[in-house]
Structures are given as C-alpha cells and as structure tokens.
C-alpha cells in the first residue's frame, strides 16, 4: 500500500534533494511527488507517495523532520486526510465511439479540454484508485496517452506547527587572546 507523506519545507535549493535523498538512500522508489509554493512564498508543500516497509515508516518521518529545511513532515496514510490526483489524457475516438467515451467521462466527472476529429483531451481529478479505474476504462476504447499529476494531499486535522525561534549568534567580537590562538 502506498504511503502518503505531506511535508512543509523551506523553498530553498537542495530541500527537495534532501527529502528524496532519505528515500533513495534506503532504496525506496518514489511513486509520485508534487511540490509547489504555499501562500507563504518562502515555503513549499510537498506530497510524496511511496511504498515503505511498515516498520520503517515512523523512522523515516522522524528523519524527515530532522532535516533543517523541513518544517513539518506528516504521515497522512492512516490519518484523516483527503488525497487527490489530476490526470490529463488524450483518447483516440473514432466516430462510432465518441458518444460512449463522453458518457464514461461524465460518469468519472472528467472534463473535455480539447476535441478534434481524432479524439479528445480529457482532464479528471479524483482519488488515486478512481483514476486508475478511469484510465483502465478509457484504455478499452483504444490507444490513450496519460499524464498523471501525482498525489496531493491535505490533512483534515489541524496539527500545530512548531517552529524554532531565532537564536542570537555572531554578535560577539572575537577576544584578542582567542584570536592569537592557543599555541
């Protein structure tokens, strides 16, 4: 089963690499990953879907929380949360199957974003399993091309975000004897 991890990270060079590095160092292959700025442009929200052995999950979240650039990492797999994904796809639709395809699209709440003589471009959102089904059905109509957006998740609980305050540092003038070294 896929684990869904939500992270609030500083929007800084290398932050993504640090988070994914924890996964790759343990040999995990990331199923999907999304990152985008939050309301605060200095922060990004990241959602990762990845399969992790159960006994490693807590440990990995702790390690993510240890990263300096990570403000909060939360395992949303078993927590109250909503997970959604966007999928864009092109379906070849010859004359005889166009109506059927549109009907199916309607059932899954998908929108037609482009229509040509060859077929449609469709946009659908939903939870991951529902989109899997939608893709399977569309495949039965012929050749399709799919781009999935990756899971995005939001927790339904408000979890208190604990941030560290500024620390005084660097203001002290070097002492002259220290400057001269011990030896």
């Amino acid at each position: 089963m896929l684990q869904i991890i939500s992270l609030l990270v500083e929007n800084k060079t290398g932050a993504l690499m640090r988070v994914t590095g924890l996964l790759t160092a343990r040999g995990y292959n990331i199923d999907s990953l999304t990152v985008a700025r939050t309301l605060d442009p200095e922060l990004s929200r990241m959602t990762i879907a990845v399969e992790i052995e159960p006994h490693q999950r807590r440990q990995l979240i702790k390690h993510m929380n240890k990263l300096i650039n990570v403000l909060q990492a939360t395992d949303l797999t078993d927590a109250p949360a909503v997970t959604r994904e966007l999928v864009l796809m092109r379906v070849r639709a010859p004359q005889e199957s166009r109506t059927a395809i549109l009907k199916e699209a309607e059932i899954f709440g998908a929108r037609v974003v482009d229509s040509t003589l060859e077929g449609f471009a469709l946009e659908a959102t939903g939870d991951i399993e529902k989109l899997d089904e939608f893709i399977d059905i569309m495949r039965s109509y012929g050749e399709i091309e799919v781009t999935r957006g990756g899971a995005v998740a939001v927790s339904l609980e408000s979890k208190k975000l604990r941030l560290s305050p500024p620390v005084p540092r660097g203001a002290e003038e070097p002492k002259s004897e220290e400057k001269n070294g011990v030896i």
Partner: protein
Amino acid sequence: MSGAKILLECLAREGVDTIFGYPGGVTLPLYDAMYDNPIRHVLVRHEQNAAFAAQGYARSTGKVGVCCATSGPGATNLVTGLVDAMMDSIPVVALTGQVTAKLIGSDAFQEADTFGITRSATKHNYLVKNINELPQVIHEAFYIAASGRPGPVLVDVTKDVFQGNAHYTPVTSIHLPGYKVYTEGHTGQIRRAAQMMLEAERPMIYAGGGIVLSNASEELRELVELVDAPTVCTLMGLGSLPSEHPNFISLPGMHGSYAANMGMYNTDLIIALGVRFDDRVTGRLNAFAPHARIIHVDIDPAEISKIRNADLPIVGDLKRVLPKINAVLKELKTEAGDRTGLRAWWKQMREWKEEHPLKPVVSDTEIKPQHLMQEIDRLTQGKAIVTSDVGQHQMWAAQLIRFNEPRLWINSGGLGSMGFGLPSALGAQVANPDQLVVAICGDGGFQMSIPELATLVNFGLPVKVIVMNNGYLGMVRQWQELFYANRMSQVTLDSFPDVVQLAGAYGFKGRTVERPAELAEALQTAFSEPGPYLLNVRVSPTENVYPMVPAGGAINEMVLTPPQPAEIRK
C-alpha cells in the same frame, strides 16, 4: 570587505583559532586573506586528514573543528572524514571552495558537485553563490554543527564570493525555523524513569558517546552512584565514567567483556544514555537483553526505538535531563525499600568478572598485543589522550587501557575509518599542546596516513605514534581464520618500512622493538621524548581479539578463547 575576509571575520566571531586545511586554485583568495590573519592554519598533507584532524581537535575539546579544502579533488577527499564525523556525531565545519558561480555545471577545471556529493555526508550543507548570504550561512553552520546532536556541516563557497566585495554587517541572530532541538526532557517521563531505576532488581547503565558530547560525565557519575547499577561504556563512551570507578564494568558488545555482555543479557532494566544500540553492541537483536525493559535518553528523537523499542523514551540533552533524574532519585531513594535484588545482582556481576576477566596475555618470547596495551595503560595511568586506527589494536586498546576522563579516547567508532589514528592525534595535539597524545595505529592504518608524519614535524607536534605491527590486516585475518577456513586472502602486509629510517627521513626518532623485555623501556623512551616519536612494535602476528560475539550471534554466546568448538559457551 572581500568575501574571504568576511569569512575569516565570521570564523573569529565563532571563536575559531585553528583551521586544518590544504589550499588550491579556487581557495587562493581565501588563503591570501589568511596570510596576515591571526587564525592558525595547520597545513596537513591530505584533505582526508584535515577532516580527521579537525575531528581530533573537536573530540578532545568539545569545540567545533574546522577543516578547509579546495574544489573538486580537495572536496571529494574530505568526504570520508565527514561521514566519519556524521557517524560519531562530531561537530565539524568544512569549508570548501567551488568554481566561480557562472562556471558551475560547465565541467570547469577542478569542478565537482560538492553540495550534492556531501548531502548525505553531513548534518546540513550549503552552497554560497551570493556574498551577502555568507555571514548568515557561516554562523548557521557553526550553530547546526554544535547544537542538538552534533555533526559535520559543509559550506561550499564559489570563488567569486571569496573575491567579491560587500559591506560587512555583523550578524546578530540566525533563524532556522525547521531546526528543532529538544533539550529538557519530559518531566513526567523523568519521574517515571527514576522510579523504574529504583524498582529494577538487575539494572544496567549503558552509557555512550552522547555523555561525552553533552559533557555530562559528572551527572552520569552521580546517577551511577544513586542507582548503584553496573555500568558499561560503549566504544564511544569510554571515559564518560572513569575506568577506575567501582561500578564500571567495561565495554559491551562484539569484543566486550564477559561480565559486560552477561550483564546486558540478564538485566531487567537497561538505562540507555546517549547510545544508539549499534549492531556491534547488541549482536543478534532478538537475543539482546531479552528480559529487560528499556529507558532510552537521547537528544535525537530518531534514535528512540530505531533498533530496540524503548519502554520509556526521554528526548533531551543528557546534561539537562540527568540532573533532573538525579534529583528525583534522591527524593525517592529515602522511601525506596530494601534493595536485596540489587545486592544479588552485584554478587553475580562480580562472579562473572572473576570468571573471565579481561586479562592481558603476556609471553616471554614475543610481544603480545595485549601486553603492549597493558604497558601503555601502565605508563599513561588513564590520563593521556589516546587515538587509534581501526581493527584489532583498537579493540585491545579499548579493552585494556584505562580512561579516567572523557575526551581522552579518540577513535573512529561508527564508520571505522582506517588511517584515523595519526591525523586525529595531530588535531588533538594542536588543541592540547601540553598533553601526552599517543596514536596507536595498526600497520595497515598507519600506512594510510604516513604523510602526516611531515605535519607533526612541520608544526612541532610531539605525538607518540605507536604502531602495533603484526604484519597483517589483523581483524580481517581474524575473520578469515574463524569464518573463512583460514584462507588468508590479501591480508598480509609485507614490506613495512624501516621505521628508524622512515622517522629519520622526516627528522625525528624511530625504533622497532620485538622482545617483550625491551617493551616497557622503549615506550618510556618514546613518551619522554620532547618531540614526536615513532615506535614500531612487532607483536605476535596471529593473536586474535577475545571475547568475541560472532556476527549475528547472541551476546551471551561469546567465544572466549581461540576456537575449540566445545568451548563455545551456550
């Protein structure tokens, strides 16, 4: 002010007095600024040794060690030393030069992706391409390296930042909102921990490197005496409780003493302080302390229940948490009942100690490695700084040399880097110019760091280098003997140099001893030499380290003597 000068000013404000480093192309502007700067630069002979020397400095003082290397090969040579510092939680700041910002990614001369390469080798790392960020980054680096669970931090600075000019405004504060350091410990948990300690019938204190890092030795000693529990110190924790303290048992684990391992197996409460249940300590996990509950105090929440589930976890700084536990212990101890169980436990512990003590083997015909360690112990009296390489000599030194204070025993515990002994001794001697510093090296590890003999002479560092020379990569040979049908593959180290000539070539004294009768006098001569000294001790080539818990074995099933299957204890 130039970026190079700003950097040095920030280092001075962090109290840096010494940098271990090696210059190169892109750090030219930095080295030019160092030319008339009061910070002392120790020119090592290889960048890896700059990182090891910075660790020797940090491990012996508790201050942040600083090393410096140029871009490309300079930076990649630092990596082993950084991972080593990461594994043992040693505060080190590494400064590296990077090619000019606009050349990054162009395969420029001596370009390497240092930021990417060192991501997993450090606690945190930085790439500075903007001179205005430099002061903030330097102060953050020192704060991160030294606070919480310490570790190495690397700052990669592009050449144009060193060369650039900016108005320097001193930093007054830094803000790392996502960097959480938990120090105080949970009051309720602390109370419960103290209760558990007094209720236990067979408690064991398992103290590690965290005690040393947190400077909590005094607090540990008080706890040990209040609980009156037998105490084992890990390889990283040796000296955190004086070796001569009556409650000190020894090292636990793969080459721990019989009493330590039997204690850890039979205990009903492990009081784990600043340790990480390393596989070399626990042996086979399902046979490690099977009857015990676990109290685990550590500053790093990720260590709690990582290997062994903690029945009572406390996340905090031992320096802050131990006094609180001690206060509750004092309060509860008056009402605590008669601890008869504990008396029986001590009786058992003494029996185990007498049954199989860590007794040095001594022979009249050849120098036994244990004999060498015993003599070093006799001459240093638990007061010298002793560094080591990695392998058999490291284990014998840890078993047989006393350390009556923390920060005296310096070795590569987690990573097990050969070649660590000499450069770390160099760094420790720079920080402690008046103290006796002994580097115990294997003949393998020594040859990995030979170039630093020049640094000793160059900087007048009177390190005593003792090579325990058995002509083998002894620990690997021991495993080949025991587990690979004695097929000794690539472990013979022939052509060891003549040390009289070798030391002589560098301009100091060296000597080889082979006969047991000469050993004490030779060591005495080495230790009383005002300058550096190289003593090559030819020891019995096939001696093995015992006791030994074979890999994957249970800690109560130690091999106590050379392999005779009937004697392996069940």
